[in-house]
């Protein structure tokens, strides 16, 4: 019996030099279903979608639409076949209006002149039909991430696309916005669209998808009905072994106050308000305090002020009783360990061998530099080899591997090894698991908890809700540069956390400062 498939990718094999990104992968999208594509980073999800979207050509295999073989050589072809994609990083022009962004590339013209009135009518009709709230005349730079995503969805609908690809659409959304998106996706299939939903978040797949295809290291593992499996089963398919979804940890036993932040304020470079506004909090020894919030609410700037990357406008930062507010980064290096948000920009010198990156914070110490100012190569090599061994940093050639050639997970492991091994009392970890796969995340979480148990005070900044809920002992929510609530992860829910993150709720204990 022939099932009605909207699109079929049969036995797709795509090779890159030295690696097989997709190895005989088959996925079949039924008409009117939400089909999830699950896999870790590097499993080949993006490559597969790029093949479908015409960005890459597969060496083997074929693509069929409605049972007929088609050739997709570029995004134009994909578009003509009715395939549209919401990219993980939105492809929107910031200074254009919502309407201009929707029509861009598919403009209605008369003699080359834009006919915006017709376009506006069509966009408004679509927005009504699918419940996609937008303001067509607002500039992209002024609207919320949620509305930007709705603009992207409308872009596909405006082009009458039938097959919609959502690439990790929930990464940037608040829990409430995720709920809305799930509803929108359900509306879309009710109207006869078919959806490919790329994700590594099991709970979302369980909630919204009909079927799920799993990829692991480029190989096709299988396709199952979501109704027939549970999260543990799916994660086993994805990783290939049993995974600890919950972080295993004892209750915290907070000790002395290590970090003391008082009225910290940092003026913003982008707008007139303060990026960090009158923020005060403590972190004690032996606890993990998590700063939660939607990206861009001052977390980055807060970390910059704590680590010395930026000079705060006012307020003070004390670590172990010493005022380090205006100390140089070198001077505070004996107190603050820092796992930076952007590991390529602030964490590593990518074109250095791994061993130099391992001593990046300590190269000037007598252990590694002789009195005459020469590097002690032997000691550096030994030290680096020891860290590689102890923290299981994997690379092609050990200490002499050029860091750029390492995988993201191992680069992160190297940074963590370097920072943790210094044995300091205070550690700032900013999105330490960003872009890493489940196995690496598990490992990093375990290390953070182990450091906590040794008596280290840890400030964790995270955008990932599951990380916030699972790893931290105390949650501080940041919204528009201010701390708006303190929550206990054991007593709160993601819904409540989401309300704080969206600014809908505010703990009266944290008074509104002057912006």
């Amino acid at each position, binding site marked *: 019996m022939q099932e009605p498939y909207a699109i079929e990718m049969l036995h797709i094999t795509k090779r890159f030099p030295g690696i097989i990104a997709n190895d005989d992968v088959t996925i079949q999208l039924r008409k009117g279903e939400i089909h999830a594509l699950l896999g870790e980073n590097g499993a080949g999800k993006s490559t597969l979608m790029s093949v479908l979207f015409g960005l890459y050509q597969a060496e083997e295999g074929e693509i069929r639409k409605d049972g007929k073989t088609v050739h997709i050589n570029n*995004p134009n072809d994909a578009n003509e076949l009715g395939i549209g994609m919401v990219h993980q990083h939105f*492809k929107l022009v910031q*200074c254009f209006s919502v309407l201009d962004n929707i029509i*861009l590339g598919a403009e209605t013209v008369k003699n080359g002149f834009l006919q915006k009135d017709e376009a506006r009518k069509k966009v408004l009709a679509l927005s009504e039909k699918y419940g996609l709230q937008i303001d067509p005349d607002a500039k992209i730079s002024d609207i919320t991430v949620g509305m930007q995503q709705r603009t992207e969805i409308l872009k596909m609908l405006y082009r009458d696309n039938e097959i919609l690809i959502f690439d990790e659409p929930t990464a940037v959304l608040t829990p409430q916005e995720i709920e809305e998106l799930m509803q929108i996706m359900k509306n879309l299939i009710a109207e006869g669209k078919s959806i490919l939903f790329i994700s590594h978040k099991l709970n979302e797949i369980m909630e919204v998808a009909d079927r799920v295809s799993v990829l692991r290291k480029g190989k096709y593992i299988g396709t199952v009905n979501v109704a027939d499996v549970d999260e543990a089963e799916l994660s086993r398919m994805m990783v290939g072994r049993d995974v600890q979804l919950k972080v295993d940890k004892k209750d915290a036993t907070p000790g002395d106050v290590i970090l003391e932040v008082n009225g910290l304020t940092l003026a913003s470079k982008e707008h007139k308000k303060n990026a960090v506004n009158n923020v005060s909090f403590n972190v004690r020894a032996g606890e993990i305090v998590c700063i939660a919030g939607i990206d861009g609410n001052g977390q980055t700037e807060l970390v910059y002020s704590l680590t010395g990357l930026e000079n705060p406008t006012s307020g003070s930062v004390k670590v172990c009783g010493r005022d380090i507010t205006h100390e140089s980064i070198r001077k505070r290096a004996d107190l603050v360990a820092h796992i930076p948000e952007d590991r390529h920009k602030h964490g590593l010198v990518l074109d250095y061998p791994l061993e130099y990156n391992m001593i990046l914070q300590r190269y000037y110490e007598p252990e590694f530099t002789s009195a005459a100012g020469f590097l002690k190569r032997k000691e550096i090599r030994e030290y680096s080899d020891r860290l590689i061994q102890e923290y299981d940093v994997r690379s092609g050639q050990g200490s002499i591997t050029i860091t750029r050639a390492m995988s993201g997970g191992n680069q992160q492991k190297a940074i963590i090894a370097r920072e943790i091994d210094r044995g300091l009392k205070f550690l700032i970890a900013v999105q330490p698991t960003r872009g890493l796969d489940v196995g690496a995340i598990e490992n990093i979480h375990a290390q953070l908890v182990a450091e906590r148990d040794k008596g280290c005070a840890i400030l964790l900044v995270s955008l990932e809700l599951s990380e916030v809920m699972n790893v931290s002992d105390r949650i501080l929510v940041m919204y528009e540069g201010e701390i708006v609530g303190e929550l206990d992860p054991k007593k709160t829910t993601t819904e409540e956390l989401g309300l704080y993150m969206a600014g809908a709720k505010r703990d009266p204990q944290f008074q509104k400062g002057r912006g």
Partner: protein
Amino acid sequence: MLLLIQYTLMFASVLSLVALGGCYSEHSGVINLGLEGIMVMGALGGAMAMQFLGKAPVIVTIFVVMLAAVIVGMIYSCLLGFASIQFNADQTLVGTAMNMLATAAATIIARSFNTMKDPNNVSNTLQYIKQKRAFLVYFGRFEFNWFMVVAVIMLVVGYIVLYKTRFGLRLMACGENPQAADAVSINVYKMRWAGVLISGFLGGLGGIVYITAGVSEWKFEVGVAGFGFLALAVMIFGNLDSKVYNMMPYIISLIVLAFTSKNSAAPKAEGIPYDKSTR
């Protein structure tokens, strides 16, 4: 007084034309620092065409001279196109190199041109007293130049093209977020080429207008005396509101606009070569 108004209008025309050229290029995502050089080359092309024409009819002279300036300007702007669109070179460096090359090359070409006609003539100066009259209409003592009309037309056309047409929308998308443009299957390279070539067109035109404003011969070793850079400044501060300049002496307007244009923002992806593989 009449002379002041006449010169103001003339130089305002030059500035608007060249600044407008810079605008097209900037909106497509390529900063055209080579405008000065393009002007020199356009001027050279125009001046040589005038010498070559001798006593041709007025209409022919106007047409051929403009065409020569425009074509030479466009050809010269291809340097910027090839280097920074095709080969991802640093646009600032390419522009600077173009400016240095243009003055030197123009000097040598002008001299060879003279020597070719008369082996004893080794000056770098091209004269075009008679031919220049083709562009002029006298209202009493006021010397009206057809180029003023051309400048106004170009400004109006520029406004319509950039803000009312499909081409303008796509051009600006390429300057702001080339990835977004690419995702909706707009050819970013093609649009940037269009932006650069149009700026070569207008820059070359600006060049010939500049050297026919007020004088009847041009010493090519002085290039265009920084006018291309002035136009660049007008573009950056004015952000296309250069129509304003038609009404007042340009220096004053520059100063005024320097204080009133805090919000002029350049396109986000300007100066960044577009590489398909970055996301």
